[in-house]
């Protein structure tokens, strides 16, 4: 397994993109050459751009009959050798869950971008939300890991989509970009470097594709048609893909490995950012669009002399437990503003001894800095 540097899809410079467009370009930069999807607000522009771009560069684009078919086609294409992706929003993300579990269990690299909207159900299709965070981790049945990243700008729609592909290929795991409507539709300039680093999946002729001793726990992955006579199954399987549906050891071993290969590497997967935390007595833990308004609120409060800082979660899964625990040791109070009823706040509580206050808002609107400042003043 190795990385290489390849030319960006654009000459080095700055470009003006919506988040959804930037994500499409990040995917192209990462080498994505297969997209299957089904239209849904607020993610559709991403799909439309992929349709144009993949046509231009000779990739494969297909509009499927639904989201179950979309993610399933992505998995099929991934085994055929593609860097493959789909994008959706809440209702489609719900439909994809069984296949996401399949991808996790068969260790299939694939990228899913969820441009979250206000749920549950059809909810408010054009309004913002971030209610799918727990679903990203727990949406399919059984114990498995995924990687989920949380962009806060158009720039990061580009960067983190690229990173999602790299992590997905490197660890053979579904990787998600948990965007939201506000980020998807936000237009701003992004910087594109001349070259980007891309990771290739591990290859080893004759190597067992579904087990590996030691190393990083990630077996090599051949593609269909390479003469490896692959046996891929979503049933419990041994190193060569033979079904082991009655063998307790085989099941325990496989479940343990697909979890450990991610958790053992969480330090290289997880990214967080600290803002004004050195002497902070209070901290805001935020992610996605909410981290923008939170940072604004934190800076304003600092001007008034309040010792408050912010921890931004760029990675949501695996959860940044160590970074959160570190903050928990320093501050007396943590507030977690989010556009759901406390999904990440609950997670933060697991790792800190101090007070954690959930600032929830589920009205289809972004959380304003004033709301956050008001809460900071109150506590």
């Amino acid at each position, binding site marked *: 397994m190795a990385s290489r540097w390849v030319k960006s899809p654009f000459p080095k410079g700055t470009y003006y993109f919506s988040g959804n467009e930037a994500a499409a370009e990040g995917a192209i930069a990462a080498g994505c*050459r297969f997209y299957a999807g089904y239209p849904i607000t607020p993610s559709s522009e991403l799909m439309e751009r992929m349709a144009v771009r993949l046509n231009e560069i000779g990739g494969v684009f297909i509009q499927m009959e639904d989201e179950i078919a979309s993610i*399933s086609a992505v998995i099929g294409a991934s085994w055929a050798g593609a860097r493959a992706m789909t994008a959706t929003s809440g209702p489609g993300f719900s439909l994809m869950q069984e296949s996401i579990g399949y991808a996790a269990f068969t260790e299939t690299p694939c990228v899913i971008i969820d441009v979250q909207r206000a749920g549950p159900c059809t909810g408010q299709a054009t309004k913002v939300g971030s209610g799918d965070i727990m679903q990203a981790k727990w949406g399919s049945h059984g114990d498995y890991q995924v990687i989920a990243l949380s962009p806060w700008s158009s720039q990061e729609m580009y960067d983190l989509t690229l990173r999602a592909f790299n992590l997905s290929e490197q660890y053979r795991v579904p990787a998600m970009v948990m965007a939201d409507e506000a980020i998807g539709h936000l237009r701003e300039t992004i910087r594109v470097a001349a070259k980007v680093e891309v990771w290739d999946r591990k290859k080893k002729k004759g190597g067992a594709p579904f087990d590996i001793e030691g190393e990083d726990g990630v077996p090599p992955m051949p593609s269909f048609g390479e003469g490896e006579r692959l046996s891929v199954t979503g049933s419990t399987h041994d190193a060569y893909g*033979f079904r082991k549906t009655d063998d307790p050891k085989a099941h325990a071993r496989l479940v343990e490995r697909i979890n450990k290969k991610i958790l053992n590497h969480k330090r290289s997967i997880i990214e967080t950012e600290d803002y004004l935390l050195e002497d902070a007595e209070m901290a805001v833990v935020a992610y996605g669009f909410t981290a923008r308004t939170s940072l604004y609120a934190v800076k304003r409060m600092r001007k008034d002399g309040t010792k408050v800082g912010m921890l931004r979660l760029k990675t949501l899964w695996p959860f940044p437990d160590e970074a959160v625990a570190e903050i928990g040791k320093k501050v007396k109070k943590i507030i977690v503003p989010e556009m759901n009823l406390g999904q990440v706040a609950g997670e933060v509580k697991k790792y800190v001894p101090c007070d954690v206050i959930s600032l929830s808002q589920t009205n289809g609107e972004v959380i304003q800095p004033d709301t956050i400042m008001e809460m900071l003043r109150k506590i």
Partner: protein
Amino acid sequence: MVRALEKYIRPGVKSTPFCPGCGHGILMGLILRAIDDLKMDMKKMLFVSGIGCAAWIPSPHYNGDTLHTLHGRALAFATGAKLYNPDLCVMVVSGDGDLSSIGGNHLIHAARRDIDLKVICANNMIYGMTGGQAASTTPRGSKTSTTGEGNPYRPFDLCKLVEGAGATYVSRFSVTQPISLIQSIKKALLHKGFSFIEALSPCPTQFGRRNLLERPEDMIKDLIRRCILEEEAEGLTEEERAEKIITGEFLS
């Protein structure tokens, strides 16, 4: 399985999982005979299946690439693989419940797109694997574990369904018509476009014993008696016809 076909079986595979008298085992051999006749390169063949007894026909038994997917989704997975690597010869082998009940939407859309997939639907008119519940292919009046009084609904005519949806090769044969079935599989393998073969395959365990066909051979005899060609149906009365299953190549 005859010795000559052993080279198509994945090393390490010992026995099939099917019940004695199951038609799926016969179909498993017939597909390999078609592949052998055409000297297909197994290294370029991808077999995709869903979930059910029929989905075990290729996986893990066939010695090419096999992709055993989720219940109903085989065609969607196959679509992705074929579109990304058109050099693969992609065959989908799965059950009636898998392909036409839970997977019905994928079936009509794959047919509509006319992507080069060779689909063999092993139709036993029931959900074999889960204990004999009614499928979208269960004949009206047939007893299943969820239609104790007889199925009140009409079954799909799968061949008409996929033909209407846009498939470009369509046939129906029973495993009791092995020569015709092999010929048809060969045609599908050579056809460029969406090919669909409905292969009638008896399930003595779940269908037969509930429907007065106690022993496996009763089911075989019943299929031999009922499966006729289109031209043979011409002289029959409405009543005589109702009981028959019309087999043949409907679109090629």
